[in-house]
């Protein structure tokens, strides 16, 4: 069983995805429970995979027993084992918390199809994480896009257009990726990542390789919402059903970011990505502009989902910046930020889902005094917001810390300034909400506001917390933020340090 764990992570979801609509025809409610069970077992398989990797080293799983480079293989090393568990954990928690929200936002007749697509989306994300084959990656990439198109389109007014724009841009991105694969295949005759990384160094000066690299950057950049290829992202996040925003915000862009790492560090080696072509310089600029742009746009938003979407664009900038710093600390910071941002953004979107479910509030101005109604949810929101701002000891602080160390070690002072400035901008848009949540109950009640001592008793607001099925995942995610922060050394020691190429300071 243990040897099959890498394949099981995907197989369970894939097979269940086909059964869900069938069972759903008999009884609509069953779709959810079947999906949840599948997600749970897939999560167990992911954990088993991680355990195997940590104890015995990277796993090469050959599909159907065909040896690479002809067969497709799953290669699970330290980085993607971590990402795999991260993705399956977060999607499992999202599944738990999404039940009520989906029941409200999606028409009953569509539940089985919804959950089927949902499983396929998670499956494809896990496949992207595990695969060691470039073309296989393309297939998973397209499956994740296709399912995401469908799921996003199930959202509210505006979702159709958001989804359509995503179709157009997503196809361009995937096609570029496919072209990149094609060029690599012309030059090397191989599609296997490990094989490619062995063949490529001899032909690094070839223009074909340059072109392929550029196609990959653009293709994956589109998928991960890297500035300036992010145009689809804010609309998609805003208009998608809450459950889907919650699923794709922490997972889809993070998996794409992982693929970014994989292509730059494994398929092409760092020597090529950083020295042969000046990709690092370009990416540094893109990341820096993206970080600032995302933060400023987030400040300008009134809709909380849209605000979080722009904040994601800025955070993706951090991850790319980590890669582009091209030094040890930067890489570790970027990789750790995949984890810390996944937890932080995941819990923020879960909180938003709970708030929308409970109160229907979307506009930031309406968050006033929400802490009286939903104290635990709002506490989790604060914690996640602190992580986004980078307050120690949350996860966000530590990834930021490594990134700052990376910029200092590389003497990119202006990038240090960018990171620090963006922390402050993050603080602006998060504390603006925290202030509303906690400290504005009187502003409306008492006009004039001076003195502030005439009013002692507030009108009692009944606590109306989110249902337990939402609250528990939210709190678990919040705990995850702290755990990633406090145990970041363990994560780095067991998983992330191996991504740093040998001999890199």
């Amino acid at each position, binding site marked *: 069983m243990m040897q099959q764990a890498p394949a099981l992570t995907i197989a369970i979801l894939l097979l269940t995805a086909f059964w869900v609509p069938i069972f759903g025809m008999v009884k609509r409610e069953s779709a959810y429970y079947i999906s949840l069970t599948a997600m749970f077992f897939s999560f167990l398989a992911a954990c088993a995979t991680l355990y195997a990797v940590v104890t015995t080293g990277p796993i090469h799983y050959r599909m159907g027993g065909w040896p690479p480079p002809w067969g497709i293989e799953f290669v699970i090393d330290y980085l993607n084992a971590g990402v795999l568990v991260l993705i399956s954990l977060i999607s499992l928690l999202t599944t738990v918390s999404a039940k009520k929200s989906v029941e409200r936002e999606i028409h009953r007749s569509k539940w089985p199809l919804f959950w089927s697509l949902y499983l396929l989306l998670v499956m494809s994300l896990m496949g992207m994480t595990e695969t060691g084959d470039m073309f296989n990656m393309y297939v998973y990439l397209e499956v994740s896009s296709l399912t995401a198109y469908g799921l996003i389109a199930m959202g509210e007014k505006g979702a159709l257009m958001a989804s359509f724009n995503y179709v157009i841009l997503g196809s361009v991105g995937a096609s570029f990726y496919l072209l990149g694969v094609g060029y690599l295949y012309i030059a090397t005759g191989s599609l296997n990542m490990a094989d490619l990384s062995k063949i490529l160094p001899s032909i690094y000066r070839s223009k074909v390789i340059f072109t392929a690299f550029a196609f990959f950057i653009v293709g994956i950049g589109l998928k991960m919402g890297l500035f300036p290829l992010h145009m689809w992202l804010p609309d998609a996040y805003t208009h998608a059903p809450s459950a889907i925003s919650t699923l794709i915000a922490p997972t889809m862009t993070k998996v794409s970011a992982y693929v970014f790492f994989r292509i730059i560090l494994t398929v092409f080696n760092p020597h090529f990505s950083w020295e042969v072509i000046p990709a690092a310089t370009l990416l540094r600029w893109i990341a820096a502009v993206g970080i600032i742009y995302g933060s400023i746009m987030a400040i300008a938003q009134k809709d909380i989902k849209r605000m979080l979407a722009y904040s994601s664009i800025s955070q993706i900038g951090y991850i790319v910046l980590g890669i582009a710093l091209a030094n040890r600390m930067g890489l570790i910071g970027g990789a750790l930020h995949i984890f810390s941002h996944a937890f932080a953004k995941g819990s923020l979107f879960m909180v938003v889902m709970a708030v929308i479910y409970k109160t229907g509030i979307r506009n930031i101005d309406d968050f006033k005094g929400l802490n009286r109604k939903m104290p635990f949810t709002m506490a989790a929101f604060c914690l996640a917001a602190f992580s986004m701002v980078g307050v120690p000891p949350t996860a966000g602080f530590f990834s930021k810390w490594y990134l700052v160390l990376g910029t200092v070690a590389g003497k990119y002072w202006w990038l*240090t300034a960018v990171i*620090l400035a963006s922390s402050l901008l993050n*603080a602006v848009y998060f504390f603006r909400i925290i202030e509303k949540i906690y400290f504005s109950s009187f502003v409306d009640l008492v006009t004039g506001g001076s003195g502030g001592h005439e009013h002692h008793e507030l009108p009692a607001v009944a606590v109306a917390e989110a249902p337990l099925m939402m609250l528990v995942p939210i709190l678990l995610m919040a705990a995850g933020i702290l755990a990633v922060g406090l145990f970041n050394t363990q994560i780095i020691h067991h998983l992330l340090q191996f991504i740093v190429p040998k001999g890199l300071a």
Partner: protein
Amino acid sequence: MNTIVISYKPLYAVLVSLVGAFFILFTSEKRQNLREAWTFIAAFIKFGIVISMLPVILHGKIIKLTLVELAPGLSLMFKVDFFGIIFGLVASGLWIVTSLYSIGYMRGLKEHAQNRYFFAFALCLSATMGIAFSGNLLTFYLFYEMLTIATYPLVTHNEDEEAVKAGRKYLTYTLTAGVLLLFAIGATYIYAGTLEFTPGGFLKGHNISIGMLQILLVAYLIGCGVKAGVMPFHAWLPSAMVAPTPVSALLHAVAVVKAGVFGCVRIIAYVFGPVLLKDIHMWLIVAYFVSFTIIVSSLFALASDNLKRRLAFSTISQLSYIILGAALLSKSSLTGSILHIPNHAYMKITLFFCAGAIFVKTGKKNISEMDGIGRQMPFTMLAFTLASFGMVGIPPLCGFISKWYLCLGTLQAHEIFFLFVLLTSAVLNAAYFFPIVYAAFFRKPAEATGVAEASIPLVLPLSITVVMAVIFGIFPNFLFHFFDLARNAATSIITGM
């Protein structure tokens, strides 16, 4: 070398109020007594833990505790030394007094959201202990930011427009300072490879260019100086006075601002060290810079009519004494500077308590309304008078001793200019405190009132602190051995041991 003792006490000192905070948070808003009981239990246990460490420290040992690795090569590390324990003693001791006062104040005004208030208060104290006992810069930063965040709900406590604005201002200043500090710490780590506080500094001998060191020092001092209210980064402090008075008293006179000052001294003495600071030609610049603050904020204090605001500016000026003493880098000035941390704390907290007692009793906030208040509230105003004498530096109050050593220090450093700064400031202190005292006792009140003191929970704390201020003036080693601790700390910094 100092003997190192490994003990979990510093961790417990931090945790006790953290745990207490959550007990408070989960207590029903209605159950005042239980909530206050939690506060007191936490405060007493914390103080007990801190004071139990004192004998060990006085024996010249250092308590050290290395916990989880926060980042590769960097641990969450506590280290209790002479300097740290002074701050720990002051903050934890005054927390007890302030808790008593808070209860009187909050009940007296029937304040709202008391759970949040006591919760944040306990968190602040936890963070303050962490700052006092942190053994390296990363641990320091962790608690420093925690303090920033935990203070925010206290500043905005009133939830009216003014409070929210003050809260924003507070966050803008302190978070900006925080990121500067983060940059400086990160750069220090990259260049020096360690962040552990060492008496006499650890940055020397790491082959860092002078320009870089200067930039680092500036970043550090702005990072910590914002909390310490060094001009021109002080503007948040007078605004933050909208907070309830116990907050102003403990946090904006003792814990938060002292954390900033504590940080500045740590940076000057334990990161850079006297030798390096002289090598990079920065000590005089820093000294001039804070001298400017000392004088100008005294002038601001003269101009403000709101009592708490005046006290805030006075705090700004007095805090800069401490930084000045550290920047002068002589043994006496360091002794004076470190000693001024507890001494100023006891005096300033008394003054704030008085301001709060007056407000609770009469609702008066402005000095111009306080004519003859001494007849109505004799105890309160007597304490106020004594404390203000201390601020000016009149013996036998404790303010005299620290100022004396600061003055000696200027002579030791052969910088007469700063002696004049200190003396001028003393005159200015007198100029803004004595009129209050005069008006309180010798002017006729607008309407005649009999003696009507504030309630016991308000008067008792301020009496305790003022008595302590007097005792520390006469017996500087009374109970806590502040003087010995300060002198030992100064010696260890100068000798680098």
